[in-house]
């Protein structure tokens, strides 16, 4: 069971997901030791190619790769404007010539990691492409979910916020469903797509969603679009309708509902300060597990070699 690339969750089998989640466990145990490094990828090169600004995901991958003893290079690409596909294609030839073993790519455009993966021998890991997929986030979410629910099948996960633009919502929903978790989405009608998988429940009312009794609530970072046609009137109105306010938090904590978030959080928008101190808030744990999950992915993928080309 091996793959060259990790581009999305859809194409992973249930077995592959379970395997990766199992692999992440031992890597996480390393973190408590004084020496956190293993020589698994010694002599291998990892290149990060982030066309979108990111500190958390980029750092997480860098730490993961370094703990596997890989050599990590950050390929400096402009991320101010939308990078056209053509210039990405030109970059691919450069990358191929560098003979790097792993490429970790993030881009505003959906499908760019796939386009790169098709053209290079290196293993490509999608670190987020447009609103399409963010598979390592989904794996760390699944790993975290399984830590608190070792038997995830039949548990309920409610994802709240801007589902429409969220690659996290897509990938995490897909992975959770493959683990047997029931998934529902909650948010304003303009941000909860009507064309999602039929198995995913769709709520636009907070109270209705709570009647569904989720075991965990996954909050997405919410931002006002800077574009011409807004998706909701104001952050204040969003918070009043869908935010975890103090009042809503009280009821959630009474029921022992877990809270997740891909970070970075907007305090006072999708959640209130109290949530961050809550013992069932998994946000910090998600960050730690992110490194373990990404180590498992890097360890699992197998780049092509030049000799593979001759087959």
């Amino acid at each position, binding site marked *: 069971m091996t793959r060259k690339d990790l581009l999305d969750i859809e194409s992973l089998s249930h077995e592959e997901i379970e395997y990766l989640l199992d692999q992440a466990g031992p890597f996480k145990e390393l973190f408590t030791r004084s020496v956190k490094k293993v020589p698994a990828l010694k002599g291998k090169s990892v290149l990060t190619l982030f066309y979108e600004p990111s500190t958390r995901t980029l750092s997480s991958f860098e730490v993961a790769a370094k703990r596997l003893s890989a050599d990590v290079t950050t390929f400096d690409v402009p991320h101010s404007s939308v990078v056209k*596909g053509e210039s*990405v294609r030109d970059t691919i030839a450069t990358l191929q010539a560098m003979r790097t073993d792993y490429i970790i790519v993030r881009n505003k455009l959906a*499908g760019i990691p*796939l386009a790169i993966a098709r053209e290079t021998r290196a293993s490509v890991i999608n670190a987020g492409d*447009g*609103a*399409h997929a963010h598979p390592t986030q989904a794996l760390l979410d699944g790993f975290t979910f399984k830590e608190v629910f070792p038997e995830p099948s039949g548990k309920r996960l409610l994802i709240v916020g801007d589902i429409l633009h969220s690659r996290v919502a897509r990938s995490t929903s897909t992975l959770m469903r493959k683990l047997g978790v029931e998934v529902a989405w909650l948010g304003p009608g303009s941000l909860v797509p009507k*064309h999602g998988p039929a198995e995913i429940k769709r709520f636009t009312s907070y109270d209705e969603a709570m009647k569904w009794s989720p075991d965990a609530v996954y909050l997405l970072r919410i931002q006002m679009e800077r574009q011409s046609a807004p998706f909701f009137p104001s952050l204040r109105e969003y918070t009043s309708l869908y935010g975890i306010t103090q009042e809503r938090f009280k009821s959630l904590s009474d029921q022992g509902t877990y809270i997740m978030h891909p970070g970075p959080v907007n305090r006072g928008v999708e959640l209130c300060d109290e949530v961050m101190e809550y013992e069932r808030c998994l946000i910090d744990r998600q960050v730690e597990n992110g490194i373990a999950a990404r180590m498992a992915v890097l360890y699992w993928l197998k780049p092509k070699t030049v000799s593979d080309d001759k087959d």
Partner: protein
Amino acid sequence: MESLLIKKASIATEDSGDLVVADILVEQGVITRMGKDLNVSDAGKTLEAEGKILAPGMFDAHVHMREPGQEAKETIKTGAEAAINGGVTGVVLMPNTSPAIDSSAMVRTVQDIASRDARIPVYTSGCITKQRQGKELAGIDGMLKHGVKMLTDDGDAVADALLLKRAMEYASEFDCFFASHCEVLDLSGPRALNEGVVSHRLGIQGTPACSEEICMDRDIRIAHAAGARLHIQHVSSAIGMETIRWWKKMGASITAEVSPHHLLFNEEDIGNYDTSYKMNPPLRKAEDNKALLQGLKDGVFDIIATDHAPHTAFEKAQDFVSAPNGITGLETAVISLFHYYINTGEFGWDLLVKRYSSEPRRMMGLEPVSIAEGKKANFILFDPKGSTSFTADYMCSKSQNTPFLDQTLDGSIDLVVLGDEILLER
């Protein structure tokens, strides 16, 4: 060309689904005799055509040949050869070249290239607005004086409704008609694919069908008010088709076209970002395929047109959003429509002849091609028992951006004759 005798061909016409078996004799580019078991002893060339279909040469009223400006994708020469390869003996070019065809000078330039390079009649449409910018009217009278009949900013709608109305009122006095690419840009997003399950799965903002339907309805209303004749291009949705049906019932002076790809494919075919299914308007849903086919059978659609849109392999190999819209169609239309519809009994040769040969010519003010004594030879010979593999070698277009690439379908075009010339013989 020496005289040509074709024996026992099954003649397809627009009037009847029944094929009549006959021999035809072509002398000096004209069908001089036609009938059962012709007694011709001195034919220069004789072809046995038993079981083969002899149909009028097709006519595609929606074609991009990219010249001038984008000759890496296609030229009038390669585009015309692609047409011949697909059994098409006449085309109408869209004016979105670079520079755009928006003046008599540009019309003449294209006509000069065509008369030098093309072995079939090539007509061109002209822009409604200068450089398709939607700001100022193009030199309409000059273009019409050089034979332009169709005015269109194809590739874009004329966003300014008042400007479109003025153009239609102005030109209503001339012998011409308008053709609309229907789209409300504000609703379209990045113009990549239909808004639906696939756009959600792939994480790309989709273009809802209402973007097309609203503009279609708008343009018909404006044309109706202005007294202009209007043709609706590449209708992709069920509601769009019903919109046209309703307006025809209301007596609006409109025609409409459907493309083979909107009949045959839907958004699910995009799979994992396959750009050979990316075009504008985008592929919609399976229900839309069904509705469009019904619209074609019911005569809601006057013509079939391919929107032949060549792009280089490099451009199409980009990510789905960046890759350009459009697929080639000239070489695959007749064979794919035969394979999926005629061969399965969905419709007969009469429909194909009517919608892809006669009606588009009538729309352009040309005499439809008929297979009859005294008529100029303009026909194809099609072998329903043959097969065609759409390999890169098979295709004459400079570009191979078609979903049919490397597929094998039933049927083959064995002969194309136009006047005194055998344009193709396989």
